[in-house]
């Protein structure tokens, strides 16, 4: 009996991928349990607290819209983190790359003004992508050619970006109308043609802050999914992520792929910064603190990427979940008096739980991949030896 091989359009959704969900579910469950105990320890009723959170995140049109507004930059960053992870690079630089992207977008927008009509939006987004990409690319370059640990370099670059932004917002980019008096460092407001329109589905979400950045993020998630799993570019990135040595034997320029994954990752975070400017605040503003502009989306994006199973499409529900946590936590703070910072702690636990429970599937995969690569290595080593002779 012959089994005809079906063309598998949704290659991403198969048994292997479903197994990938196990650590995520374990993590979610464990985080839920720990959060409950924490709430009890803080004299709050977990059921009241969780229902307040749900109410705060999805209880009304406006609540849902706010959840999605929070989720949008997280989704962009998570897509970028996913690319980097798949390429074997750990990108902690989402914060800095977001700032770089926002600076690129606001500079282009303010320079163009109203002269190009609606064309300013794609140009500003592109500028945000490139600026974030270059900023991420620096860390990729340093890793590829100078063996600089990318985790450390991106953390340094985050701090540098914050200071650069503070300098520009207090100087060259300072809102001329603020008269030099600026408790809240901010740029001038962008012209109306440059503003991403609000997103209203018929009457739904009208009069909320939800904007087209969400739609752009979802489209980009699909594009990156296709890029990673359907193109040679994506194949090379993932090959380097799985095994650098084998990729090199196979003739892939490993250094270039590392720079490319970090460029793309930075570009995604740059878009996150750009849509915050173009769709939400209509200017670049901060309160001077490191997370004053980003609201920690650069870090939360890491959590969402892991939670999304390191898949751009998985990042969509994952980012929504974290957007809901952040918005819901504010309601929880008001209703049961537990500080919203609990969510940061829970996010940390979720990260720990996701990577810790990976052990259950990793052993199986690693053994299989290891065997395959071992064979590849042997074959190539022989070939190389023949070549030398």
């Amino acid at each position: 009996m012959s089994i005809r091989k079906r063309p598998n359009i949704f290659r991403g959704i198969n048994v292997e991928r479903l197994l990938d969900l196990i650590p995520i579910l374990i993590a979610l469950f464990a985080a839920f349990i720990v959060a409950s105990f924490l709430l009890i320890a803080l004299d709050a009723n977990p059921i009241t607290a969780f229902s307040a959170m749900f109410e705060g995140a999805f209880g009304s049109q406006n609540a849902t819209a706010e959840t999605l507004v929070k989720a949008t930059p997280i989704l962009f960053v998570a897509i970028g983190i996913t690319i980097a992870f798949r390429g074997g690079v750990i990108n902690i630089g989402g914060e800095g790359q977001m700032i770089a992207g926002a600076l690129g977008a606001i500079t282009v927008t303010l320079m163009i003004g109203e002269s190009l009509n609606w064309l300013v939006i794609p140009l500003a987004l592109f500028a945000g992508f490139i600026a974030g990409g270059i900023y991420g690319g620096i860390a990729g370059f340093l890793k590829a050619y100078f063996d600089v640990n990318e985790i450390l370099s991106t953390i340094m670059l985050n701090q540098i970006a914050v200071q650069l932004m503070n300098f520009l917002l207090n100087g060259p980019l300072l809102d001329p109308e603020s008269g030099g008096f600026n408790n809240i460092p901010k740029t001038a407001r962008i012209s109306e043609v440059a503003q991403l329109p609000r997103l209203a589905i018929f009457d739904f979400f009208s009069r909320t802050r939800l904007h087209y950045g969400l739609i752009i993020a979802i489209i980009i998630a699909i594009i990156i999914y296709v890029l990673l799993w359907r193109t040679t570019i994506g194949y090379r990135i993932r090959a380097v992520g799985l095994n650098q040595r084998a990729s090199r034997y196979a003739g892939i320029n490993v250094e270039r792929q590392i720079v490319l994954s970090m460029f793309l990752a930075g570009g995604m975070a740059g878009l996150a910064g750009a849509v915050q400017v173009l769709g939400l605040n209509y200017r670049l503003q901060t309160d001077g603190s490191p997370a004053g502009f980003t609201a920690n989306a650069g870090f939360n994006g890491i959590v969402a990427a892991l939670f999304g199973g390191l898949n751009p499409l998985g990042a969509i529900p994952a980012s929504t979940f974290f957007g809901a946590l952040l918005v819901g936590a504010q309601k929880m703070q008001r209703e049961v008096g537990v500080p919203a910072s609990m969510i940061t702690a829970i996010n940390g636990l979720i990260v720990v739980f996701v990577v810790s429970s990976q052990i259950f599937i990793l052993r199986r995969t690693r053994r299989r991949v290891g065997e395959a690569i071992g064979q590849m290595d042997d074959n190539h080593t022989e070939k190389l030896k023949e070549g030398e002779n």
Partner: protein
Amino acid sequence: MIGNIITASVFASMIRLATPYLFAALGETLGQRSGVLNLGLDGMMLMGAFFAFYAVFITGSLILGLIAAIIVGGLMGLAMAFISVTLKAEQGISGIGIFLFGLGMSELLFQQWIGTPTTVSGIPDVYIPILSDIPVIGHIFFNHNILVYVAFALVPIMTLVLNKTNFGLMVRAVGQNPEAADAMGVSVTKVRYTTLIIGGILAGLAGASLSIAQINVFQQNLTAGQGFIAVALVYFGGWKPRGVMLGALLFSFVNALQLQISVVGVNIPSEFSAMAPYIITLLALVFASKSREKPDALTKPFERG
């Protein structure tokens, strides 16, 4: 002009500012020499800083503050060991998880248990007869709280432990070649648990050296990324305690200079001087990345054959 900026006070604050970096980075050195990258250092420092502050705030006892920092730091180290050694989780990411946990938890508990910004009377400076009275030198070196001296004393101690003791030999063996160490009968798991718990304790003390000795307050994200700098200092110092100390001194000198520049009012945008330490660290990472002391097994979980 230059004389206004580079004063004895700058050197004195260099020594003082280097203290938290030294505690944290020396502990990190030990962990990394055994093959584990602990990126959660900043979170551990925050937890240590908060619990030390809270203990002093409630009891007024500085000793209890230090004990609280040691216990909390040790527990955080134990958690990191369980995650990275027993569960073999990816170290870079689980470290970020630990960091986020420490960041959120310390802020949560601060808001819940204390609420408003408060100061405590912290560890006083020690007056050393004769030495403290020497002009300039006394001001720079002999007018600090006890934790400063402990931190600097740890440098030769750590060097001795790593190079001259049986334990140090095991640490280095486990970091360089865990398979061989395992074959020789060294328990990779035990060694790594030990180094990570010690690293956690030192991170807790690093936090305490901020919250109950240097600035005597606790606030959200008190460390402002100092733990991450400490991790970078280990690379900078080539995994050697003395190198780590030189890095910590250089970094805090730039920091002290930056503070002084903003006081004197030199016409450099303050953002640029605030940026300088990070740019220097980044450059240092470029030039210091190839050290022969770099543990071969760093970030690699050990799996028996």
